[in-house]
């Protein structure tokens, strides 16, 4: 979904550039205050993994391929703003070093594949994580004692390792982590493609009625690949070393409305 030079109008590129620069500045300011030591190597490795995995185009229907985006993965592993920074680094390097995505469209590409893909997916992720346990457990959502916990081990790990202050109050939530990740990562790709189509239509490159269904259609297939990879990586990290992801202590504990 890397937009080359000349696809999107100057105004849209400029606007997207302004938005991403502003979000980037906020993210850097926030990271200066709250980046944890454990996140230092994790940030570099997430960036490396996202870059490498983006090179692995997998074939989908009709002589078309798709590749992993990774924005939601980065946000889930590092929190939304740090995840956005990871995507900015990856997309900027792709653009400057590998000529993948036009330099005039750099802001637009970071906007689509970093901000929109990440946030679009992340909102769905947090929503599902809040709502699914509630729907399927008949209202144990408010059960802050965590009496009915199957995921007791998970709770142990998180409460003992993330930090002294974090207590996993809502262990049912951990069981819904992977389903939420899967659905949300599909949404992340599809949302990004919808915004990409919108930008192409607004630039007069292609009529909305044509480019929108085409982009969303193709990317709803690519989104399945995204879901498989994102869920796979999250499940490995969650099973092996969840304490490396300080964000999860907060995410998995948070109740509806605590966002």
């Amino acid at each position, binding site marked *: *979904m890397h937009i080359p*030079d*000349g*696809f999107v109008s100057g105004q849209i*590129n400029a606007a997207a*550039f302004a938005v*991403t*620069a502003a979000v980037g500045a906020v993210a850097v300011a926030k*990271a*200066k205050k709250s*980046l944890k*030591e*454990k996140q*230092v*190597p994790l*940030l*570099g*490795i997430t*960036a*490396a*993994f*996202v*870059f*490498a995995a983006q*090179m692995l*185009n*997998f*074939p989908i229907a009709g*002589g*078309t*391929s*798709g*590749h992993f985006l990774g924005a939601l993965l980065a946000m889930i592993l590092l929190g939304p703003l740090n995840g956005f920074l*990871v995507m*900015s*680094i*990856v997309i*900027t*390097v792709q*653009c*400057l*070093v*590998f*000529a*993948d995505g*036009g*330099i*005039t469209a*750099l*802001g637009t590409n970071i906007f689509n594949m970093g901000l929109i893909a990440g946030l679009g997916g992340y909102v769905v992720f947090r929503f599902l994580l809040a709502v699914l346990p509630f729907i399927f457990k008949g209202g144990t959502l408010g059960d802050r004692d965590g009496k009915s916990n199957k995921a007791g081990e998970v709770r142990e790990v998180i409460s003992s390792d993330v930090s002294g202050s974090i207590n996993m109050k809502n262990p049912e939530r951990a069981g819904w982590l992977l389903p939420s990740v899967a659905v949300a990562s599909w949404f992340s790709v599809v949302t990004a493609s919808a915004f990409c189509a919108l930008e192409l239509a607004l630039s007069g*490159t*292609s009529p909305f009625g044509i*480019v929108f269904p*085409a*982009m969303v259609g*193709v*990317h709803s297939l*690519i989104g399945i690949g995204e879901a498989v990879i994102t869920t796979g990586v999250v499940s490995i990290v969650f099973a092996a*070393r969840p304490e*490396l992801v300080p964000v999860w202590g907060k995410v998995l504990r948070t109740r509806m409305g605590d966002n």
Partner: protein
Amino acid sequence: MKKSERYFLAAGLLTALFLAFMVSPFASKAPDGLERVSENHGFNIQSGPVWHSSLIPGYVFPGIKNRILAKGLAGAAGTLCVFIIGFSFSYIINRRKKGKLSIVKRIKEEQPETKPAGIQEGNDNRNR
């Protein structure tokens, strides 16, 4: 940080390098979603790239005849490059946060090298 955590992180980085170096040369070469749509609907006529100084254009390492090796090397180089930028960016930010003043001054001069570099370059180009 515990040893097991270090090993896990190292395994993550090695996985990324493995994917980029060994697997990416064999990835599908078919056009991706946006390329396919632009071809099908006739708007794939580009203005041509504006930036001509890419070191490794098209993920093919220059000067290497073997396409598989060229792509693998390009992937490994990019993965390392992105890792180093991401790691040093967060390392510097973390050091600053702790207020280690001795390093702060040095970093202040270096800082444009890290994260905002790409964005600023994009900006320069747009204004040209």
